[in-house]
């Protein structure tokens, strides 16, 4: 082979390697970008007057006077909408009345005609045709009215979804029906639905699916008093909803309301914290002790080999199997709690991260220079005293790093807590309640909201917000670990 070719292959290999690293980084970026951008949408968004009203009424937050002033403004801007609607309703009612009138007239005329028996056939036929024509005309008018009424019902529903219930009407029971759109991005979606009707049109080829066509809703109301409503709504949407940049940091500390339509994710965050800390409570002492034994006391041999094999096996057990085991052992056999509970979940998670804690602590303890121990022993300390006072403190930062990384793992695990700890709805627990009660938790509720919620699309921002929170939580823990490790290596070098 020529030298040039060999060099080319070499470069190619380098390029492939760098390409793979770039691809790796790109994958991370592609993953993180939507999560971060849309996740921030849960915290920072353009909130409408409905949002401020909701915060004031349900959470007691905000400036009463300012909100009332804004509300008055919005009501003023909305008034024409309701006026046009009621005018149109009146028009429909009038239409019904005149139709009824015409029907009455028609029936009278028909009766009249039937009474005239002496008419010639020709005349009779003409009269009959005239009557038929009128009947068809009446039917057409009736159909038209019914169609308009149906369109009106849909339109009113959409306007209710956009602006909330009309002032003066009874208050609906669900929060989501009590208010209009609280977020401007969602409001724009609704606005679009009001202005355009999504229709599906058959194609000529019957083998092709229908295609989506947007038809202006105004077409259905052309020539009626409602026609000006649509340009009005289009031009005055901002005046009716008064969107303003809103920061909702309390998303992290509010409980959720109306099946996560409103409020924040505090119960989930708290549940995750309990589960994680609980898992650490069990795993850390056991893990550190095991690591001390493995490094300082155990003699390499059969026993240690077996121990290591089992620790590795434990690390390799699929997480869902831990879930099943937690259910079968902690709940059904040991009865640590009557049903799912934070306690059972923590114990299950603890088993999952135990190998991680052991390995990390082992490494940290091994990294302590042997001279430390030798110095302590030479001063007459017993072995365990040396471990306790010299080796452990020296290894502590490394052990902590490992613990922090395992915390991240415990916080993000879903499969082990499905059967042992997690529920979809619950309020924030007090620590003593955690022993016996299940809790919502971030990882499980992300799954739950993304797949099992009845309005998946409308609460996307909450889902993204949850994912962002969880990812940030885990990444912060990892970042802390990375920083800690950097410090340690600096210290060791110095």
């Amino acid at each position, binding site marked *: 082979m020529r030298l040039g070719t060999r060099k080319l292959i070499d470069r190619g290999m380098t390029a492939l390697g760098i390409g793979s690293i770039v691809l790796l980084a790109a994958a991370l970026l592609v993953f993180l970008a939507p999560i971060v951008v849309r996740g921030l949408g849960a915290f920072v968004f353009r909130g409408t007057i409905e949002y401020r009203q909701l915060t004031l009424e349900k959470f007691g937050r905000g400036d009463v006077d300012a909100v009332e002033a804004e509300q008055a403004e919005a009501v003023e801007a909305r008034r024409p909408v309701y006026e046009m609607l009621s005018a149109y309703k009146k028009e429909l009612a009038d239409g019904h009345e005149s139709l009824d009138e015409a029907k009455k007239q028609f029936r009278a005329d028909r009766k009249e005609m039937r009474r005239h028996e002496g008419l010639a056939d020709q005349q009779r036929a003409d009269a009959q045709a005239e009557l038929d024509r009128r009947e068809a005309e009446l039917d057409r008018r009736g159909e038209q009215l019914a169609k308009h009424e149906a369109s009106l019902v849909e339109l009113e529903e959409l306007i209710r979804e956009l602006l909330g219930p009309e002032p003066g009407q009874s208050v609906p029971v669900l929060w989501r029906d009590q208010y209009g759109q609280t977020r401007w991005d969602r409001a724009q979606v609704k606005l679009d639905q009001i202005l355009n009707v999504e229709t599906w049109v058959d194609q000529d080829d019957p083998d092709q699916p229908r295609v989506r066509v947007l038809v202006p809703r105004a077409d259905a109301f052309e020539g009626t008093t409602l026609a000006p409503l649509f340009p009005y709504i289009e031009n005055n949407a901002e005046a009716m909803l008064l969107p303003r940049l809103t920061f909702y940091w309390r998303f992290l500390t509010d409980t959720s309301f109306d099946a996560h339509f409103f409020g924040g994710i505090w119960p989930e965050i708290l549940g995750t914290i309990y589960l994680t800390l609980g898992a650490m409570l069990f795993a850390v002492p056991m893990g550190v002790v095991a690591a001390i034994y493995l490094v300082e006391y155990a003699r390499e041999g059969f026993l240690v080999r077996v121990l290591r094999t089992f620790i590795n096996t434990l690390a390799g057990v699929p997480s869902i199997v831990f879930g099943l085991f937690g259910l079968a052992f902690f709940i059904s056999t040991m009865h640590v709690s009557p049903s799912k509970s934070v306690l059972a979940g923590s114990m299950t998670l603890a088993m999952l991260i135990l190998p991680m804690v052991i390995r990390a602590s082992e490494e940290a303890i091994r990294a302590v220079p042997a001279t430390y121990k030798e110095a302590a022993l030479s001063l007459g300390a017993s072995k365990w005293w040396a471990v306790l006072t010299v080796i452990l403190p020296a290894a502590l930062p490394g052990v902590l790093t490992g613990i922090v990384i395992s915390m991240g793992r415990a916080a993000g695990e879903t499969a082990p807590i499905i059967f042992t700890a997690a529920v979809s709805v619950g309020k924030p627990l007090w620590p003593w309640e955690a022993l016996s009660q299940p809790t919502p938790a971030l990882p499980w509720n992300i799954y739950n909201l993304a*797949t*099992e*919620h009845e309005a998946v699309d409308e609460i996307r921002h909450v889902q993204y917000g949850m994912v962002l929170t969880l990812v940030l939580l885990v990444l912060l823990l990892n970042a802390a670990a990375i920083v800690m490790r950097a410090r340690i290596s600096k210290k060791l070098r110095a």
Partner: protein
Amino acid sequence: MRRFIVFLVSAALGMVSPVAMAAETRIVVDGSTTVGPIAKQFAQYYMSKHPDVNVTVSESGSGNGAKSLVNGTCDAASMSRFMKDNEFQAAVAKGVMPVAHVVAVDGLAVIVHPSNRVKDLSLAQFRDIYEGKIKNWSEVGGPSLSIVKVGRDTNSGTYETFESLVMQGARVSGDTETTGSNGAVRARVQSTPASIGYVGLGFVDRTVKPLAVNGIVPNRETVASGVYPIARPLFLFTNGYPKLGTPLHGFVTLYLSEKGQEIIEAIGFVPVTDY
């Protein structure tokens, strides 16, 4: 010294009493994802009226609800089907007497993507699709696309209703995607032009197209009157009738109140009684 003892005792009581209270004032609901929205809204409404009560809702499926009730690990099991023989037997064997509260009626709507021109299926066609006999939409008057079948986990209540009312002994073909909930089925159908799925009536919205079955469109009237062929009652089961006046009693009888019915109607189900 005495003061110290008093302090200790009160501290101990302080530690214990919340536990005792917590144990009394919590209601655990477990079961169907179909009844889930009702249970969750009831829970929230009830907690807003009784802040001292914690109502937790798990949506893990009807079978699990029954199991939890039998094991005494939940107070109310939400189920989208009636209890089965063996569940009853297991319950009685454990001294649990299941009492059914019918909270609402639900129709199983057959949904397709709005781009699908098919409007109507007979029950037999519907069955044939899921059995795998009909593989392409063109066989039932639709576009030439192979059908993507979306179904539910084999032991959800919705699935069991589907199996008994639609499949009637025939087997669902293996290439049916299964999902964990009504919401997931709808999400799949609204994003997939060639798909078909079945969900509770309360889950039908503008993004999917419900089909008429045997010419009957699913809506409140046809479901409540039983004209629509795939309809079923939704249950909450309790162990015995709850003691009157307890939180549990208040919770499971919410569906009888006007507010309860309003909630049921607001999330798209059909209340059992008319006010």
